[in-house]
């Protein structure tokens, strides 16, 4: 956008890892502040690039912030550390939020975020594990992440390792059959180290999930496939922390966390608006959104 300027809204540098030693209330407060700053950065990245998927970025930001900054056992200085927890972001179009959160966790310098989708940038519109530290799988075409995550969890089981695998999927993405293939395999094997997190914003590209191809009753479907299922407010950092710290939901089963979210949250004119799937803000919208984010 022509009037774009790099934001300095008081957020300053992105926050880093939130120490596990703090009480959960304090961690949640820090994660909420981190998510606010991440969203501002995502808004700037998408505006500068002139393209992106802000609606899905914003619905996933709190989940990604809690996982990457509060939960996952990672070593950004040694991104291929074999015993690291795995996170597969199957909704690869939420790349701005994924990159911003990886950056905040320390996988790369903040300056790189400004190259988002620029010619020859390593920060493609969809993540490339070969070129971006911290990215575990190349996603973008929907329905790819969960089978890969199942393979990661089987690998951990073969090694007798306690490392965990998380897979963030979009809800519309669950219309892809490959997810249900993978869920059958995960349920059959009782992969307790695997957690699927559904960004349940109830909107896909052009309409609601329930009016396009109904997902409900999602919880009972996942349970029928052999998962321990729980539901959580996907924008409540304390609730997300509490869920992720009490996994698996049921012993001996993979976990299925339905995180209820809102596309475009919390910006008033974006929230639950399907056209913000991949809309780019005008100068006025950019300023208004930034102001709302605080």
């Amino acid at each position: 956008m022509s009037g774009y300027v790099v934001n300095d809204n008081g957020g300053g540098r992105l926050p880093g890892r939130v120490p596990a030693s703090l009480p959960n209330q304090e961690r949640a407060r820090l994660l909420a502040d981190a998510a606010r700053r991440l969203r501002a950065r995502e808004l700037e990245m998408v505006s500068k690039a002139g393209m992106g998927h802000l609606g899905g970025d914003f619905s996933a930001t709190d989940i990604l912030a809690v996982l990457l900054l509060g939960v996952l056992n990672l070593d950004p200085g040694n991104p291929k550390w074999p015993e690291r927890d795995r996170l597969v972001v199957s909704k690869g179009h939420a790349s701005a939020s994924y990159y911003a959160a990886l950056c905040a966790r320390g996988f790369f310098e903040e300056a790189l975020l400004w190259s988002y989708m620029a010619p020859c940038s390593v920060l493609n519109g969809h993540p490339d594990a070969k070129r971006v530290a911290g990215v575990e799988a190349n996603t973008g075409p929907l329905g790819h992440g969960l089978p890969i995550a199942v393979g990661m969890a089987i690998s951990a089981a073969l090694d007798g390792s306690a490392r965990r695998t998380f897979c963030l999927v979009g809800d519309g993405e669950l219309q892809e059959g490959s997810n249900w293939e993978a869920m059958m395999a995960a349920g059959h094997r009782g992969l307790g180290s695997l957690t699927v997190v559904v960004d349940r914003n109830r909107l896909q590209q052009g309409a609601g999930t329930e009016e396009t191809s109904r997902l409900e009753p999602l919880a009972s479907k996942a349970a029928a496939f052999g998962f321990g299922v729980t539901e959580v407010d996907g924008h409540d950092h304390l609730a997300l922390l509490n869920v992720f710290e009490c996994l698996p939901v049921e012993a001996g089963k993979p976990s299925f966390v339905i995180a209820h979210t809102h596309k475009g949250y919390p910006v008033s004119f974006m929230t639950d608006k399907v056209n913000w799937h991949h809309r780019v803000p005008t100068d006025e919208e950019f300023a208004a959104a930034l102001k709302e984010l605080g």
Partner: protein
Amino acid sequence: MTTSAALYDCRDSFAETVEALAQEDPRVVVVCGDSIGSSKLVGFKERYPDRLVNVGIAEQTVIGVAAGLANGGKLPVVAGASCFLTARGLEQLKVDLAYTNANVTVCGMSPGVAYGELGPTHHSVEDIAWLRAIDNMVVVVPADPLETSQALRAAVAHVGPAFVRVSRMGVPAVYDASYKFSLGRAARLLDGDDATIIANGTMVAPALEAARAMAAEGLAVRVVSMPTVRPLDEAEVVSAATETGAIVTVEEHSVRGGLGGAVAEVVVSSVPVPMTILGVPHFAPTGPARWLLDYFGLNAAGIAAAVREVVKRKVT
């Protein structure tokens, strides 16, 4: 080079080799989608039950799970009927393996028209065209048990994704024990300067038979075995064009986009010479596998006829 009258199912060589690889390297695991019998994995399952990852009849998940296992430091060898694995799992082959550079070896079992009477649903004559179009994907079509074993070992040793066709149709041994397969390298089995036959897989043996028959007619025909379709041994193709002036390619695959297409891409941009591409031109009628090869002229007589014809088109 010698040939033997005995016919071999290359799946046996695959099974023996993958069991040996598992014994040699604890990272080796096999991923399949139910095809334990048809991929000859019964022995592997008995020896390494935990390392046989059977995810059920789900080709997309077979490939995705293999990518995840590779991320976890395993060396996955995927086995499944080539027709289903490559078609149903194509996007996973592209994205999860090739674009990611995942260290996975995919074995397309019973390719070509090996399933005979089961029909075109079960024939795999598009797999090479699909896979060789994908960047960073190694594609190998071995000709006999020895080459199958060596190609499998080379594919597992290669860092990155590789596809190896494993023939079900009985083939004679076309290489002697001294043969050393090398990824990306052709093998010149017979020399000659009147024309070149470039073949792979099940078509190497009839190519040799055709060339030997034509020697009696006074035609000196070169036979090049081209197991690696990608990366192609371009220098060998240029030599064939330059030194023999006419090329016939033959493969148990569609005439569109396979070995013939790969060779033609090099020929037209280097030394254009007359070429004929032999293969499967359309969905097959009902019939047993070997009958189908004869039906499509994919035998020594058909290859020889094509060589005689292409030689007439040579620019002198």
